């Protein structure tokens, strides 16, 4: 019996009778991070890092969660589990599973870039490595955090000179906080839309340092925002909330902005900022874990799997939805 099985409910560890990032309601769930495609409501009991537990409570009202710090080992029916930083969003973890000398690591989502919010990714040596590959094509190559910060700062400065507000849009958990902290010395006040503000408050209380920020509810019509950076959710520019911003320049921050065709229309500026590993980082990570058996999931699995096979790995692609065993 393999230590980890791939089922339509998620990664199943039969020996411990629990799932990692289950897609359906199960009895025991180990959660890598708080995004809704990984943490779902309705399971019997949860295991997660303290920060992920707080996020799950805030976003999905999940209460029944046992928390373990990074690198802290806990056992379920003789199987040793531990969380290790994945660098994706605050609290995000890889799950290490070890039983009778066999070690698996399930990454959830991860990035290798070091931002000012998340604990950086740590390589965990293993025999079986389950990796995401959302951006598993060679065209996806990210700029360094410093270059991105410089770009965003420059854009903010230009808008300030033109007396326009700067609306920067990204996913409300993880990306928004990263963007907010990216410019190390803010050149104006920072405002957040209500969703992001609430998330920030929760994270701040949990001990994460942020630049001073304020709530912008969209009702204050006489506020001077001409030198402000406003952090909004991805669809903020099109919402009613943005009506009161006055003259503003909008920008989106996403890894998908890498290709020209994704930059057509929508906001004025497109920054290529991703919370996932790029092509070379994916390969680098696979190499560093020392694993021989690689399971690729989520994204350009066929392409990335094929490339790993070309490099001599025993790589298989995994898809939950089809309830298939790896091939």
């Amino acid at each position, binding site marked *: 019996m393999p230590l980890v099985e791939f089922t339509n409910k998620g990664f199943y560890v039969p020996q411990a009778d629990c799932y990692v990032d289950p897609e359906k309601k199960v009895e025991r769930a180990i959660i890598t991070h708080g995004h809704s495609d990984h943490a779902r409501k309705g399971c019997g009991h949860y295991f997660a890092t303290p920060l992920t537990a707080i996020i799950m409570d805030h976003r999905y009202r999940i209460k029944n969660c046992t928390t373990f710090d990074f690198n802290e080992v806990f056992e379920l029916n003789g199987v040793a589990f531990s969380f290790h930083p994945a660098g994706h969003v605050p609290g995000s973890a890889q799950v290490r599973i070890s039983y009778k000398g066999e070690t698996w690591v399930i990454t959830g989502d991860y990035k290798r870039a070091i931002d000012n919010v998340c604990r950086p990714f740590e390589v965990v040596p293993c025999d079986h490595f389950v990796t995401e590959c959302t951006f598993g*094509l*060679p*065209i996806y*190559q990210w700029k360094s955090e410093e270059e991105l910060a410089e770009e965003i700062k420059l854009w903010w400065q230009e808008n300030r000179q033109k007396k326009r507000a700067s609306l920067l849009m990204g996913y409300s958990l993880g990306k928004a906080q990263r963007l907010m902290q990216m410019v190390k010395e803010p050149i104006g006040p920072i405002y957040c839309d209500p969703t992001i503000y609430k998330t920030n408050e929760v994270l701040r209380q949990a001990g994460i340092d942020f630049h001073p920020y304020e709530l912008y509810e969209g009702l204050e019509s006489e506020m001077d925002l001409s030198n402000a950076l406003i952090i909004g959710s991805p669809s903020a520019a099109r919402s009613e909330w943005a009506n009161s911003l006055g003259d503003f320049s909008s920008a989106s921050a996403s890894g998908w902005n890498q290709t020209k*065709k994704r930059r057509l229309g929508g906001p004025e500026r497109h920054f290529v900022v991703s919370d996932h590993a790029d092509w*070379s980082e994916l390969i680098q990570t696979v190499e560093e874990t020392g694993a021989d058996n690689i399971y690729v999931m989520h994204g350009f699995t066929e*392409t990335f799997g*094929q*490339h790993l096979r070309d490099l001599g790995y025993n790589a298989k692609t995994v898809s939950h939805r089809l309830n298939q065993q790896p091939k």
Partner: protein
Amino acid sequence: MEKFARLIDELGVPSSQEDQIQKVHAYLSHCDEESLNWSVHLLRGHPFKRLCSKKELVTLFINHIEFSEHIFEQCIDATGDILEAISLSYPKPGKAISIELAVILKEVELVRSNKEEIDHFIISSWQKLALTQRYYFNKIITSTFRSPVSSSVLCAALAQYLNQPLDATTYNFHYVQDKTPLRVSKLRSEIKDKHNVLPIPIIEPVENNLDLNSTTWENHFISYQWNGVRCQLLTHDNGHEIWSRRLELITDKFPEFNHISLPKNTILDGVIIAISNGKILPKSEVRKRIDRKRITKKDLEKLTMSFLAFDIMRSAGQDVTGLTLEERLVFLQNLFAEMSNTDRLQLAENLLDSEFLTIQEIWESAKTMNSRALIIKAKNDAYNTATHWIKYSAKAQTTCGVLLYARRGEGYRSNEFVELTLGARQGSNLIPFTKVIPNLEEEERLAIRAFIRENLIERFGPVYSVRASIIIKISFDGVEPSRRHKCGLKLKNPLFLSWEKDKSQEDVISLEELMNEIG
């Protein structure tokens, strides 16, 4: 290169003309001189000689990457653009080096003569350039770079940069026709000061298919729309110039006008027509002359080019654009009366003045003069405010062709067919005679797509050859002879009308019928 790439990226975002001018101006002011010249050369859309083809670039790329060709194909799918896929997927430089545009283009010029070094040069440039810069570098060396700005935006930015009036800059911009990177300093106002007469924006007639017999036309000036190239002929202190409608300077293409005896400081509006054996030839003959690099004696003997003047904007230094057409025509007639040598210059006459003709008869006679439209002007219109030049033309003809080839789109339109090639009958064969852009409702679009996929005979890259059975109705404005087309003719302005489901191949027009349409 970094600043240039950023500028092009920024100009790609839809914005107001003012904004664009500002961006270009800001860029020009931060450029070193050589890069400035090259930037203007590229931005005005002048060609950069190709260093290598797209295909060669792909081969080079595939030989230098560490992943398989299959993965590269996935990258092309994801980007929808081969050059972008290459630029993004070649490993990024450890630390991008900023290279000036002029420096890298100079290197291209150096390496051009040395075939063996081209590959090495391209690879080493890729290793130095950041991703977006690499993209524009690839665009430039494969000669596929297209300027995102119009010439008016560029002129306005240049005027701001040179700190001189817009009209002088515009004039010089069009006057200096260097093919190698032009020197921006040449655009300073000296040229204009030397010549002191500028071409002015000409009036474009507005198409209007009114009923000719409904009104009387006594107060109007009526002429054929001559089958020629509209241009303005101007003289200044140092000679004469001919400017086309699109403000190309074409003086040197027509040496026959070198000895005209117009008074200085005059601007005439008119057309250049080609005449052979007393017959007016299609305007493609004149266009052909303009496209020639060098004009030989033989060219001059083959055809007679004549300038037919129908309006005057400036008469011996006096600006007459504010006067009415009637008053202007007096100036024009006096001018011609005083002229000694009028071989090459002719005066267009008001056809209504010949009493024997009604407007209907004029219209009928147009075809014998190889003209397909009448131009009708109100006699009391001034040149600078006139909005009432009416173009009365024949209604478009319609015909049917059979679908022979369909071309797939690129990028996000890659599963649509964006161009259809139609065939006409010749004996028992079908000969392709025109291409049209389909304009179909969703349902028919899907049906035609399904048909093309099912009835595919052969694929030539993006072009699908299909079994001939779909009949398509098109409209067109006329037929011209052409040596470039296999069928020997070219339709003017072909437009897609409809998919004729109840017609069969017998309804398709034959090539002979089309040939007869040639005027």
